[in-house]
């Protein structure tokens, strides 16, 4: 059976491997100048993000220089979905569409065993590929992570443990969609939509609540780079009431007209900011929680598919 799974999916597996190797080569080629610039500009001396004067200029120039690469890593967010679309969704939908399910499901092996062996091998390949991708991205982004942190969504979702977990979930979701919808193209569409919506819901509504955020009060009004994940940044007046942006703007204009420094004016009014954020050192805990959620969802989808395949008419 392992041989059969390999034989029937070798095109997809090899395509995935070639894709990963190409990405690794691209990463290696682009990383070399990046690291040398990092050392040339002595960027490490600006760490942890210090307020040493001039650092902001050096860091900004470094980030500008390599912004194309950073933008490219954002596109990696889509890769796990491809596993669901091109491996998961056709897995059963194609068998049902072409009628080969009638061949496979009438052999001396039960449907459940047939499917579980396929899923096991494909899941292992997916996890391996996802882990490689997550590690590669993390290695490439290392210099940027030092300044920006890794907690913002566009970074958090392409690095580390969550990447294999997303890919596994996409795979199982695709399999389930193929079994239920029985046709490849609708199954691919449904996989994409369900995967995207789940990712969005978890990222938007669950992830900020994985752990209680830290609240910090500040009287400084200059925004400085924050390596954590800022969830909320609000201004309160002396009486503790929320200051709307309109009122803040009005106060600033007022100060400017009067020829006073707006920052010290706001401070003089007794206004202060309250920032609630998830600190950067929670990265691995958050990764573990999010990866756990998607792994559990993947297992749930797989269990559902294994249960449903027994009673699927063919």
């Amino acid at each position, binding site marked *: *059976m392992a*041989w*059969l799974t390999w*034989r*029937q999916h070798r095109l997809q597996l090899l395509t995935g491997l070639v894709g990963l190797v190409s990405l690794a080569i691209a990463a290696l080629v682009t990383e070399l100048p990046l690291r040398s610039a990092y050392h040339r500009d002595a960027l490490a001396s600006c760490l942890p993000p210090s307020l040493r004067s001039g650092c902001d200029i050096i860091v900004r120039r470094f980030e500008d220089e390599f912004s194309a690469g950073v933008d490219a890593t954002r596109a990696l967010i889509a890769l796990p979905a491809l596993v669901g679309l091109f491996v998961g969704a056709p897995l059963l939908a194609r068998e049902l569409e*072409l*009628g*080969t*399910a*009638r*061949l*496979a*499901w*009438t*052999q*001396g*092996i*039960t*449907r459940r065993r*047939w499917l579980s062996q396929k899923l096991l091998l494909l899941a292992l390949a997916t996890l391996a590929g996802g882990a490689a991708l997550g590690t590669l991205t993390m290695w490439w982004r290392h210099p940027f992570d030092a300044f920006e942190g890794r907690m913002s969504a566009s970074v958090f979702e392409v690095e580390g443990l969550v990447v294999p977990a997303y890919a596994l979930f996409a795979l199982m979701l695709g399999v389930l969609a193929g079994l239920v919808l029985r046709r490849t193209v609708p199954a691919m569409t449904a996989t994409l939509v369900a995967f995207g919506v789940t990712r969005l819901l978890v990222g938007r509504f669950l992830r900020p609540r994985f752990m209680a955020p830290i609240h910090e009060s500040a009287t400084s009004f200059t925004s400085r780079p924050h390596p954590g994940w800022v969830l909320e940044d609000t201004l309160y007046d002396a009486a503790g009431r929320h200051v709307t942006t309109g009122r803040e703007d009005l106060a600033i204009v007022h100060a400017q007209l009067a020829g006073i420094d707006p920052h010290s004016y706001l401070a003089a009014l007794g206004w202060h900011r309250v920032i609630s954020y998830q600190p950067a050192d929670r990265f691995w805990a958050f990764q573990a929680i999010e990866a756990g959620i998607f792994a559990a969802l993947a297992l749930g989808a797989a269990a559902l598919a294994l249960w449903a395949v*027994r*009673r699927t*008419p*063919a």
Partner: protein
Amino acid sequence: MAPLEAHALGKRFRRRWVLRHCELELPERAIVGLVGPNGAGKSTLLRLAVGLLAPSEGELRALGRDPAREPAVLSEIGYVAQDAPLYRSLTVAETIAFARATNSRWDGDIAAAFLSGLRSDARVGLLATGDRARLALALALGKRPALMLLDEPFARLDPLAGRSFLQLLMDGVAETAATVVIATHVIADVERVCDHIVLLSGGGVRLQGDVEALLDSHRLLTGTRRPLGRIAGVRQIVRERHVGRQLSLLVRRDDAIVDPSWSVDRVGLEELLLAYMAPEQLPLRQPRERAALRWHG
């Protein structure tokens, strides 16, 4: 234990009943022709027999077990689905390897005997239709099945290929003592080899039995047109047909028909089955009464 039996079997797709009130019992070692017009439920019956579908009502047993609940029975059933689905991207050798990997009872020698002349590295998708049918048959027979089910195996074969396919099949099952069910809408395809007939029409079993017994219990009566009364020895008029001033009746008999005003002939299998297939000509209920009410002249 009947190789395949059904009691009050019904299968519904959405709100349409494809099979209803099916009673079926096949004898062991029989070569069964499962015949009926298109859409009669032949494929559905076979798919129920291999657990690809679950019954909506009633029960079905293949080799004494319920295939939908006990899929283990599938290792003893050879099934060739309609259009003989195979993985087109695999080669012949890989297809055989697939069957070996998925069947514990696999017998490579039987399968190999069927594939002589087929290049083992040929892609299944590029094989001629006849060769593909042969490969599908080899996969089914390699399981050394006790029950062989073939769904319209001749549909895509030319008459010559169909004939050699049938020959292969008969050779293959000759040694195994398997019961064979061949579903087809072309009676001529199976006429030469069947010793048992199951006729499906309108979702139900219209006729089943041993071919010899069926032929023996039916007669073709020919005579001049006349009012139809009771004819001694006739149990049921299956079909009546008028040709000019002639009246010809296909009847099921209880006894010898000795009425000298009729000329009595034996009937061919194809004609017999066709007569039962046409549902509008089936006097299913109270045949004598209906026949007696009509006047032909």
